[in-house]
């Protein structure tokens, strides 16, 4: 659990650095997100006059739900002690809980920007969540399980190229981009723009509350990269009860996967322009259709 917490800002810093380099800028140091968080934590929190208890407790709940979801994804070893407590569907729903609270706190103060952000976030989610469930179905039907550990083990043992898995991978990447408010859907580096979604919801936050939300966003990015790595490239994952060396290899492989994942994400981001809000449903709709197609193929025949 602590590993994801420690690595999440690093991944964020890495993506920012690479993005800056790709744009021929020097970019902030890789460790900058840690410094930002520390600075935010030390600052006083400015809260709107009419903010309720939900506004103040929301960041903690958002962070906790995201953290628990991320902790349930195998990172470098499959034998998590409590992996049976929640399967992929439950992880999806946990992310849904975090989003639910995020959308609510966006509306708490009663500003127009907060409402815009919440409304759009829920619209994206209304397509992204079914897409995720369809991806889960596809993967679960291939692996015969919705448990992430079992899925990873199955993929390790019976690695083969399958059409349905390819569809699911593309769909999951689209969902990950949308869920993490990355570029074609939302711009993480913007304020004062009518198209912002995630930033609009957290506009009123400052100080330690903002730090929690930023950290939750970083953990969520890490979660999706780990999820893709765990399902589609499970190589290097240490099995349950492996030797220390296996764990070391697993950890190194995990960090390498994160770096590759972050790099690919940034490459994608810099090569595409941001979409209009009402084209985003088409974009996420593609993910939904791909997921549904993958599931259908699996229903029709076991060989896809």
């Amino acid at each position, binding site marked *: 659990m602590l590993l994801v917490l420690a690595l999440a800002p690093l991944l964020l810093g890495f993506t920012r650095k690479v993005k800056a380099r790709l744009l021929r800028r020097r970019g902030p140091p890789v460790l900058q997100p840690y410094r930002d968080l520390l600075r935010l934590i030390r600052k*006083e929190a400015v809260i709107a006059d*009419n903010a309720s*208890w939900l506004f103040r407790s929301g960041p903690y709940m958002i*962070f906790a739900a995201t953290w628990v979801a991320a902790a349930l994804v195998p990172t470098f070893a499959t034998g998590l002690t409590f992996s*049976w407590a929640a399967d992929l569907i439950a992880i999806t729903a946990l992310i849904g809980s975090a989003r639910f609270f995020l959308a609510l706190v966006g509306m708490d103060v009663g500003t127009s920007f907060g*409402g815009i952000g919440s*409304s759009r976030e829920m619209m994206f989610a*209304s397509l992204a*969540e079914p897409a995720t469930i369809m991806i889960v*179905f596809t993967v679960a039907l291939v692996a015969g399980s919705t448990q992430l550990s079992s899925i990873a083990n199955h993929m390790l043992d019976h690695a083969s190229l399958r059409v349905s898995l390819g569809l699911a991978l593309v769909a999951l990447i689209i969902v990950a981009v949308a869920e993490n408010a990355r570029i074609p859907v939302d711009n993480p580096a913007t304020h004062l723009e009518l198209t912002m979604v995630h930033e609009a919801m957290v506009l009123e936050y400052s100080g330690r509350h903002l730090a929690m939300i930023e950290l939750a966003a970083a953990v969520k990015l890490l979660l999706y990269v780990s999820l893709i790595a765990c399902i589609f490239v499970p190589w290097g994952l240490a099995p349950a009860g492996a030797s220390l060396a296996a764990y070391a290899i697993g950890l190194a492989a995990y960090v390498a996967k994160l770096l590759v994942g972050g790099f690919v994400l940034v490459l994608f981001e810099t090569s595409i322009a941001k979409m209009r809000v009402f084209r985003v449903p088409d974009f996420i709709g593609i993910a939904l259709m791909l997921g549904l197609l993958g599931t259908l193929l699996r229903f029709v025949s076991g060989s896809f």
Partner: protein
Amino acid sequence: MPAVLVLWAVAALLVAAALGVALHRARFASRAIYLISLAASLVILVAAGSHLLAGAPASPGVHLPVGLPWIGAHFRIDALSAFFLVVTSLGGAIASLYAIGYGEHEEAPGRVLPFYPAFLAGMTLVVLADDAFTFLLAWEFMSLSSWALVMAHHHDADNRAAGYIYIVMASFGTLTLLLAFGLLAGPDGGYTFDAIRRAEHVMPGVVLLLMMVGAGSKAGLVPLHVWLPLAHPAAPSHVSALMSGVMTKVAVYGFVRVVFDLLGSPGWWWSSILLTVGGTSAVLGVLSALMQRDLKRLLAFSTIENIGIVFIGLGLALAFKANGMAAAAALALTAALLHAFNHSLFKSLLFFGAGAVLTATGERDIEKLGGLIRTMPQTAFLFLGGCLAISALPPLNGFVSEWMTFQAVLLSPALPQWVLKLLVPAIGAVLALGAALSAACFVRAFGIAFLGRARTPAAAAAHETDRASLAAMGLCLLLCLAVGILPGLLIDLLGPVVQGLVGARMPQQSSLPWLSIVPVAESRSSYNGLLLFLFILLSTLITIEAIHRFASHRVRRSPPWDCGFPDPNPATQYTADSFSQPIRRVFGTLVFRASERVDMPPPGDTRPARLVVSVRDTIWETFYAPISDLVSVTGERLNRLQFLSIRQYLSLVFAALVGLLIMVSIWQ
């Protein structure tokens, strides 16, 4: 003898109804009637619950010599009826508790007090009935008493219209049920359920369709749902909770009783009808809910969605049962029944919350609310819990039943029929879409009504509701949480129910370590609400502790920033309509033929520009408008018959006589 005990409780309810007529002017009447209802419901709850806890042993029925002389009235409790008695009596008990406080605000208690216990008695009798005649009689009693409650505030024209549509649809539903039981009983007329079970059935497919219409219209399946979003909100809030949370479950009971129990082995194509109708209801219900501004109507539409989910579960169970996959059928049926139970809890909670808001502000329109979390903090907290539960978010109960339905979907590639192979994944997508949309719907409902700033003086002057109401809502939320974190116990209780209907049950859950639930095998899937709840609790506490230890404690209050453009006028907040605008644009253009038009005055004209949004009720226009047009046109034509001369009447009578004689001669 639990059945006798329950019958005595029903008798007490009927006495209470009579007392309600006699005493409604007395000041203590409201409290007394609701206390009696509460006590009677608790007696039923204990009787049915202990029967279920004991593993539902076979118990002899009760035969009362009332009703038709050669039939009498048969009552019996088996596992299925015990479970649904628990649902009805638990809902009834909590609603009565709520009404002890809420009923004080009633302007015309004489219109509510007599019918409320009668309504409870009617629902209990439907579940208890063991022959077709008693079943139908109790069903009609339930419909009529609830109709009277819908008409309680009949000064409002909308309520009268709602009552009119309700009574027409309810009568039509009972008619189809009558035909269904007629087919079931066959030419020999064996009306007891035992006789029906033994009999050879003619045209079981037709019985299924008739049941879909009869029970489905009461439950609110699309396209028979039109009365529901009108009638449920029209009643007083505790009755709305009963109608939405409990009466729809009685309809589900009727359907399950006939289709799974009485009708014998199903055909596989039945399930495809159930799945299609259930899926349509799920999506259409929640999309319509997203378009509503009336809080109670929004909740009523969301009931349609949840009933859709229940029927998807039932459809899967039928498909598995028809193909002899008993274990999978048990999973799907358990999921459906569990969702019915869960829905009765959180929907009651949400209607109670809406009622509390209604008494505090006099408003049902969420566009005129806002900021209630500050004036009604406890109600807001409880309502938020209900929103979380209905949006299927872990670790509350809505997620558990939805998760189990997903697991049942994942078992269905083994179904041999191609239609089902193609249909079930689509239904899975529809289910996921419904869950995501309902999260959006309840973010909207809670966010607009309870968060933000007060939009009207009435909302600003709201006050916390009374303690009885809060206790009822708190009890609902506690039960939601309990079922969410310990679902295994309830699943085990459902074991005998499911065993009796599909011939298998889910594996014993309560003996598993950490009380997790495992529908099929641990390597396949498992879920542990308790651990998840503890994890979330623990990580929240750790975070708060860490932040409070290491972070700055300083807090400064200031006006909202809003990107530098704060506007003190609360009308500049996001409204409910603007919140749902993106979703209306994405889904609504197809489903509701929604359109937006900007009415921009030409330069020089001083009238304001307007945005005109039109949303059309496609179901009403496609199915009902032609029927109602036909009825009025025919009525208009036949109206002429009232003004004939005596000769014309006599010739009409003569023509009818000749016609009948010709028919008789041809018949022979």
